[in-house]
């Protein structure tokens, strides 16, 4: 069926899944060491909504649970959802832009650049040269953006940015950054644990203060990327064909690369490197709903959020009280799924 005839169906499905995501998030708040019922959870949230509060009977939930729920679990779940959404939308857009199924949010070296920045930050903190709570985050952000800028400058040919050059330059710079991280690890064994843990990614340190800027930022950039839906569709039939249909190809590339890099740099600086989400979520959505970016982008956003909430809940409950890094959980679930996709592709003889 064509998109033209299914628009309303997609709208309903989107709303349905959105409600599902909200319920899943509320449900996730009930899981953990402190036992809460779904009802208690809902009650605590309802009380936060000004008008609804007056209609409700007074809460019977102990105050400490309110704190756990509101100050610990909720920000964490929201951060997981935000990170999943940002990575998946960017992944979907870059797979379309690069016309490469292996493209993910980190293809231009954002992850290794951020990791190098974070490692440097952790090392310098350890040596007492730098101080402050935001150092690692800031260094990761700067590292991510510097790397992308470097990759972009290397790949540029005049006013054009050939995709192949971007991918190759990304690989080279990533390798260099990884090598530097290894050297840093060797030289600073005291901080090695911390560096390794950072590179595996986590949303455990979520705070409302962070969410206040990260959430609107990721939502805004996702919406911005969504506005490129039709343009990305046109680019799929080739750059020259897209040009013929009124797309300024080079300008579009630059804009999309810019907004993607900024988004991922922010996400990574908060959560560390969480792999596979931005790669497999778009592929999953594409398999079920097709490759039209006007469908792919919004549903990737939802499913990315859902997948991350799911993964992070497993990460903190599976081996409780020990925590598995969420990056390890996404890869643990993501890798087999990805291998399944590869097998499927081999059988069918095509990929996307």
């Amino acid at each position, binding site marked *: 069926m064509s*998109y*033209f005839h299914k628009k309303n169906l997609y709208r309903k499905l989107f709303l349905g899944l959105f409600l599902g995501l909200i319920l899943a998030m509320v449900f996730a708040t009930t899981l953990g060491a402190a036992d809460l019922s779904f009802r208690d959870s809902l009650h605590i949230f309802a009380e936060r909504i000004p008008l609804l509060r007056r209609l409700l009977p007074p809460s019977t939930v102990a105050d400490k649970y309110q704190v756990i729920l509101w100050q610990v679990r909720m920000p964490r779940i929201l951060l997981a959802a935000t990170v999943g959404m940002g990575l998946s939308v960017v992944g979907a857009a870059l797979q379309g832009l690069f016309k490469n199924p292996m493209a993910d949010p980190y293809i231009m070296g954002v992850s290794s650049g951020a990791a190098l920045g974070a490692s440097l930050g952790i090392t310098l903190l350890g040596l007492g040269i730098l101080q402050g709570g935001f150092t690692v985050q800031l260094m990761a952000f700067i590292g991510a953006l510097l790397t992308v800028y470097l990759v972009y400058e290397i790949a540029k040919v005049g006013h054009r940015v050939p995709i192949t050059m971007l991918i190759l330059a990304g690989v080279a710079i990533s390798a260099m950054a990884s090598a530097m991280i290894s050297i840093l690890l060797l030289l600073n064994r005291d901080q090695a644990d911390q560096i390794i843990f950072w590179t595996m990614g986590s949303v455990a340190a979520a705070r409302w203060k962070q969410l206040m800027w990260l959430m609107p930022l990721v939502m805004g950039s996702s919406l911005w990327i969504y506005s490129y839906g*039709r343009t990305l*569709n046109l680019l799929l*039939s080739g750059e020259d064909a897209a040009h013929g*249909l*009124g797309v300024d190809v080079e300008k579009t590339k630059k804009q999309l690369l810019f907004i993607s890099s900024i988004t991922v740099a922010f996400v990574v600086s908060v959560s560390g490197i969480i792999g596979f989400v931005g790669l497999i979520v778009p592929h999953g959505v594409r398999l079920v709903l097709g490759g039209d970016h006007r469908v792919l982008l919004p549903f990737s956003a939802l499913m990315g959020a859902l997948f991350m909430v799911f993964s992070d809940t497993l990460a903190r409950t599976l081996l409780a009280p020990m925590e598995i890094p969420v990056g390890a959980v996404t890869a643990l679930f993501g890798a087999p799924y990805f291998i399944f996709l590869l097998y499927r592709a081999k059988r069918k003889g095509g990929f996307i």
Partner: protein
Amino acid sequence: MSSLRIRNLSFHYGDQRVLDGFTATLHPGKFYCVLGPNGSGKTTLLKNIQKLLAPKKEAVYLCGKDVSETSIKELAKVLATVPQETSMTFDFSVLDYVLTGRAPHLERFQRESQGDYEAAKEAMEHTGIWPYQQKSVRALSGGELQRVIIARAMVQDPRVLLLDEPISHLDLYHQIHVLELVKQYSRKKNLTVVAVLHDINLASAYGDEMLLLKDGKVFLQGEPHAVIHEQSMQQVYGMDCLVLENPLTGKPHIIPHTGERRKI
């Protein structure tokens, strides 16, 4: 008013001069065939008109506007292109694919309207692909796909249609079918068609005017009889041929001299 005017257009790739003072004026409602040997500048010419290469200032005018100063989106409202071959990497339905032709006329968040749908339906019925509207574009044969591309170009509602060797990959039936479709459509909409064709006989049969290119400029322009003759073929292609009159169309028909001759 001319729909496409090219004035003293030159273009270099590095040191290599590909177009050298190309000048031509094309009018609405006419079917132009661009002929010429490989390397005579046909593709470079099309790319300059499309602005895929940057044309000089005041060299290419499309519907009265200087192409070098027109935005890519504005250009797409008056100019559509049918390439030689289109690769389909994604599973779009034929209808959605044809509807992408409306893109230059839509704003960023604007959705295709019922009017756009009607335009797509008309073009698809005209090209005979309406029955496949829900089929995936990847499931089509070469001939069907080229008709889909032409329907998309029609939906774009251009004033000038460029065809870059649109039939070189098609069988004989589809070659004729595609050219017929384009010709009918151009008559109906008073559209200028500029087609690069390698088959001189098909060009002669369908084109109102020929543009014969040599070394980056127009060697001859005019009706088929005025352009396709033994002398010009010898001068441009360096080839001896016999030029007859096609008994069905009355247009020139060439037969190249080949090594083998029958014994009389």
